[in-house]
């Protein structure tokens, strides 16, 4: 069962593969160079109630705003 869900729905400890984005080119091109591109594996470290999701991607920790995390689609691992 490989579900595709927004990043914001992963719980701390869960991992996923980035599949697609629901945002325009500007949105996407801000994410690519920070390590969020199709095929990249990410792991959720922490989550805030209303604020950002903290993830690990490509050896770095990133905090991703709630609005953004809603638009990043991942396949749950």
């Amino acid at each position, binding site marked *: 069962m490989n579900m595709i869900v927004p990043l914001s729905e992963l719980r701390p400890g869960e991992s996923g593969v980035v599949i*697609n*984005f629901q945002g325009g*080119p*500007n*949105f*996407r*091109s*801000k*994410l*690519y*160079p*920070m*390590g*969020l*591109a*199709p*095929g*990249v594996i990410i792991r959720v*470290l*922490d989550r*805030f*109630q*209303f*604020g*950002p999701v*903290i993830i690990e*991607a*490509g*050896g*770095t*920790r*990133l*905090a*991703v*705003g*709630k*609005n*953004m995390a809603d638009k990043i689609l991942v396949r749950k691992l």
Partner: protein
Amino acid sequence: MAMKVVALAGNPNVGKTTIFNALTGMKQHVGNWPGVTVEKKEGVFEYNGERFLVVDLPGTYSLTAHSIDELVARNFLLNGNPDVVVNVVDATSILRNLYLTLEIFEMGLKNVVIALNKIDLAEKKGIKIDAKKMSKVLGVPVVPLDAKDGIGMKDLKDVIVAVAHGEVEETPIIPTYEPAVEREIEHISKCLEGTKLVSKYPVRWLALKLLQRDEEVMKLVERHLGQEGLDRVMTHINEVEERYGKAMDLVIAGQKYEFIDGLTHEFMSYGRAGGEPFTDQLDRLLVHPVYGFIVMAIVFYFVFKFIFVFGLPIQNWLAEAFTDFGNWLAPHIANEALRGLLVDGIIGGVGMVLSFFPLVFLLFLALSFLEDLGYMARIAVLMEGILRKFGLPGKAVIPLILGLGCNVPAVMATRTIEDEKDRLVTMFVNPFVPCSARLSVISFLAGLFFPKESALVAASIYALAFTVAILSAWLVSHFVKGESGLFVIELPEYLVPSGKALLLHSWERSKEFVRKAGTVILVGALLIWYLSNYPVPIGTGGSYAEKLGHLFGPYMGLMGLDWKAAVSLLFGIIAKENVISTYGVLYGTAAAIRSAMTPLQAYVLMAVTTLYIPCIATIGAIRAESNWKWAALATAYMITVASIVGILIWHVGLLLGWGA
């Protein structure tokens, strides 16, 4: 012979500054890139008697046209003709760092040196990198480094010099994409062939950037091929994407990481890491939804204390020293007009500019410390969810709090905010935050007119000011160009900053402040001095200041105030505490002020003094951090808001029968 130029490029938080400092030592200069408010650092190092100019490019994750930082770095790499490009790569996050490296390679540069930093940290994490193999795979020299402890710096200099002298043959690896993408690159390359563009830029890079809809490159193509030529290329790309069912930029980015992943397998392997990293352990406390805020409050308390407990006495001492100097000098100048100009105008003005230096210096010291430590990013994470609702970024919390002390360092603190739009909005609303000078006005009037509930009255003014600031942020964020709310930030490893580098950098940044804000402050001080001394000194009723006051008297009447308020507010532009001292000059005693106004009028005066204009030093700071237009706009906006609030309070107060 001209000095050879070495450009430093790399992601933020990779130790680029440490390498810059280690290369250049104490010989460096902080300025701005021409036309933009992006910090530019330059330094020099010597090698066997030859001097090399090192230019530190802004730290960026890529080289797109979306942010000023990236454009500055990209334009320098493309058009600045650096002799050597040192690409600093963080060994603990090779995958992401090589994304930028490949972008640099795709620009066709063949003079790149990779400074592989933080190898000590990578080893601790169980990451093993074979630098020799990495160099072979990438086709450029790779120098392993632990810049923090100065390990590998000698090798880096050797390699830089060798590349600068053309002694190294480089074959940087260029990623290949799947056939469909390569076909399009070829097709677009053909469209561009024969144009002048191709002689200036690598054609493959142009084609790739067009496929990714890079706005700057699209403009370039339009300039060379005309609107029609650009349309032809873009229509083609649209068709391809339609057929393909996917955006090209998405495909390219995904395949770039796939390509990087393939490369790293040849020179990198993962061993066993030594338990949970220290940073992760610390973060469980520092970005905790409860403890995180407690720690942040404590940190803010100390930062505030550090800046103002040390800074304000030095500021006062400096201001007094200049006054004393003026007083000492005065009797030695016979010409009365010249004496006034020199003592009150110039010495007073210069004294004021320099008196801000300690505050600004301590601010930069504290900010650089928090930033180098890695804590600044955590503050952003904690506050983002709350402040974003009002159009402000998480990091705006720092200027908002510093503003309570002085808006000048607060405005300077906005430079830690990455996004241009966020930065502009944050500095625009900052002057609403009541600084300590306004506290003196508020507490004086509250004590005089509301002796029983002075604390409550003062608190209501603070509440009013913060409400206005937050609502303004919400409003203004709708008018500033740019996408905001796209919050993604790296949480770097915690690192103990180097004290020497902190001091040096803060010193250079403070000098830059004096240079840029200084002129505004000086001109303002001279203007006010002139208005209050010509044609006759103030207090006689004939000075330009008083005439101006009478001119604005009827306007002040709309909010229940008179011409004397107008004069006082005029002097408050220099420094807000002047509002009270000018009232003192005009009325003589506190008792006279008390009997001349009703409590409602005093309340209006408090509100208006708090909101009406940034003081001249703050205007200078806004100008230094953005541009003249933005500083003028912020000033005009504040005057408007203060007028509306003043008129509202006065009339609502009258309606409620508080006028007596």
